[in-house]
């Protein structure tokens, strides 16, 4: 399933790039990542990781707190960008 893959890649990047201490199992798709310790610095690292992984580039209008606030929010942002590419 494409959806599951996307979800697990995002979760891996959250762990590797954003270095959020919560383990993948503890993190619900709708959990606020900032409440789990994401900072503006780690969110930038996560964005760079996502851009690299999916070959997309976030336009400035998408560089908001909301877009990177949860696994769900990131998933829908990536989908939107991928749709624009195709």
């Amino acid at each position, binding site marked *: 399933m494409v959806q599951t893959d996307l979800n697990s890649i995002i979760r891996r990047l959250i762990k590797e790039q954003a270095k959020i201490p919560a383990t993948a199992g503890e993190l619900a798709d709708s959990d606020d990542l900032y*409440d789990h*310790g994401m*900072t503006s*610095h780690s969110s930038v690292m996560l964005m760079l990781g996502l851009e690299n992984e999916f070959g997309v580039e976030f336009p*400035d209008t998408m560089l*908001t707190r*909301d877009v990177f606030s949860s696994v769900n929010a990131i998933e829908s942002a990536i989908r939107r960008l991928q749709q624009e590419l195709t």
Partner: protein
Amino acid sequence: MTVSTPLPTGYLLASSPNFLRALKVAAENADDVDRAGRFPSEAIQALKEAAAFGCYVPAEYDGMGVSFQHLAELTFEIARRCSASGMIFAMHQIQVGSIVHHLNAQTWFENYLRRVAGEQRLIASATSEVGVGGDLRRSIAAVEPVDGSGGLVRFEKQAPTISYGGHADDLLTTLRRHSEAEGSDQVLVLTHKEQMEMKQTSQWDTLGMRGTCSPGFVVQATCSAEQVMRVPFSTTAAETVVPFSHILWSHVWLGIATDAFERAQNFIRAQARQSPGSTPPAALRLSELSTHMSQFRAFVKAATAEYITLREDDPKQLSTIGYAVRINNLKIAASEAAAEAAQGALRVCGIAGYRNGTPYSVGRHLRDSLSAGLMIANDRIHSTNATLLLVYRDSK
């Protein structure tokens, strides 16, 4: 005549006899406050008599409800006379703004705002903490329930600096939401003097900004759980604390620089009067300084206008990386501009400016302005922006 438009309340305050008197009191005591490194009690008392500490509280909570634009202008006017009074006024208003804009229908805080307006309570803040390296968005100390107390909470925080901490009525403190929360999962807690024990841990004997009296404290407090703001501090910080701080501080620094400029201009005029028919050589330096001041004023005004527009039209924009970069740039640019202006004024005034106690003395301005680059160190802000610019394309 049809309906007459009432004057904006900010202008009423700025021109009210009590506020004008407070400005005069601030100017008269500025040198002594600086020399003695003491709290500007006369100016603060006079500002309380002008009801200035409740001016940003909305009218529905018994305040004057002045606009942010006016608040910034009032800050500038006070700081022109006494930098310490201006900075204390600014810091207090940052705390008021943090409550006003993030009330979230919390009755306790609505009632508290009425008390701020009615009693002219002075609010200090404890955001810095020993062990977090100056990071506003990280806390170690946490809100903890008091067992068996039925709704009381407690905390203990080691703050390396609390401006006017020994003179405030109340304290707004950043803390982790609970003892298991991440360092960045913070809330604000408002406590009254009588609910706290504050142990002073250091002295405030500094180069400048001596009257802000900002030593370190260990704060222990017990209060009702209602005194914890529900809104996450991450939101309050992005939408209010950071922009309010950088804009109001910039107005303080602009006030310091403006007074230094005026002293330099007075010096040149006095020289010109002594030798009519020729322009004093240092007048060229004054002209350079005037150019610098125009730029300084322009970017402070532009940043203020941008914040007001975004807050009204699209507050979500305040949490974007682009806005974070721009408001950080204001802080860096304004803090550097203030110190440059004070040095420029010193070059114009020469030894008369270097000497204390002349009408052209700018030593106090220079020392005060040097604090600007250090309160949240500019290098720290540059390193934040350096990271943000990895993804943000700065074109605005």
